[in-house]
């Protein structure tokens, strides 16, 4: 729990740094989508560097805390289906856990609050369905 809280504080600090310096929402899916659209090079660079930093920070932290990447998804087919749903859902819903769940809720955005409650609810249903399927087999 303390680790969870510490992780959260780092994420909140990251979003606050982007806001005070660049005036931007720290949304990972938004950055990825921004890179897919035509934009001036300066608008690309900060997104690329943020996402690169994401990997660098995770690499350093995982050296200090081994086991961070020990988990595996159950199957490639499930990974594909999950990836499609996350890609389509974050595109039409305009955000993911970072943009809606952290930045939007912090701004008290009603859209982000509704989106976050929705994806937690359907995520819960998906896990319930997975558990049911595992129980059957």
């Amino acid at each position, binding site marked *: 729990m303390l*680790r969870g809280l*510490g*992780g*959260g504080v*780092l*994420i*909140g*600090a*990251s979003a606050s*740094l982007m*806001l005070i310096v*660049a*005036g931007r*929402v720290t949304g990972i899916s938004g950055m990825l*989508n921004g890179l897919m*659209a*035509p934009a*001036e*090079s*300066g608008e690309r*660079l*900060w*997104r690329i560097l943020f996402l690169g*930093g*994401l*990997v660098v*920070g*995770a690499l350093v932290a995982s050296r200090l805390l081994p086991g*961070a*990447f020990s*988990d*595996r*998804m159950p199957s*490639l087919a499930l990974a*594909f*289906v*999950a*990836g*499609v749903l*996350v*890609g*389509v*859902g*974050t*595109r*039409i*819903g305009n955000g993911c856990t970072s943009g809606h769940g*952290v930045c*939007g809720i*912090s701004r008290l955005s*009603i*859209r982000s609050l*509704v*989106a976050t409650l929705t994806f937690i609810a*359907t995520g*819960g*249903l*998906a*896990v319930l369905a*997975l558990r049911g399927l595992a129980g059957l087999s």
Partner: protein
Amino acid sequence: MKNVGATGAVALVAGSLFGAGLVLGGMTMPSKVRGFLDFTGSWDPTLVFVMGGAVVVHFFAYRLIRGRAHPVLAERFQLPSRKDLDVRLILGAALFGVGWGLGGFCPGPAITSMLSGSASVFVFLAAMLGSSFLVGRREARTSAGGATPAPRTVSKSS
């Protein structure tokens, strides 16, 4: 856009903080995420602390920062202003949630989990980016006659 280099340097630092936070909070482990979403089973509250910690920090920081006339390195704040709820938002969030529960990954942890070298992470990422790209392209075409026609050079995707 001015201050491209300085903004990029800050983005690199902020991205590193974010990535370290994801690892520290256990969000790179799909089992942690599924454990949080497993409300009727052995519920794992870790994600509440991760999201709660992030929201508390950013909630107060946001209030302090919005008192400024403009960001340090930009001319204005670029924040969403919509307040209406629409079908797209809810449908999109619902689909995202199902994928999040099935895979145990949202976009950030999926990117950092490339470090695991696991094939399933790359399949997830390719499916996520490919589907988002295709939906985005389709929407750009549909709205091409609308109020904001975006000039687009569509490159061939593989």
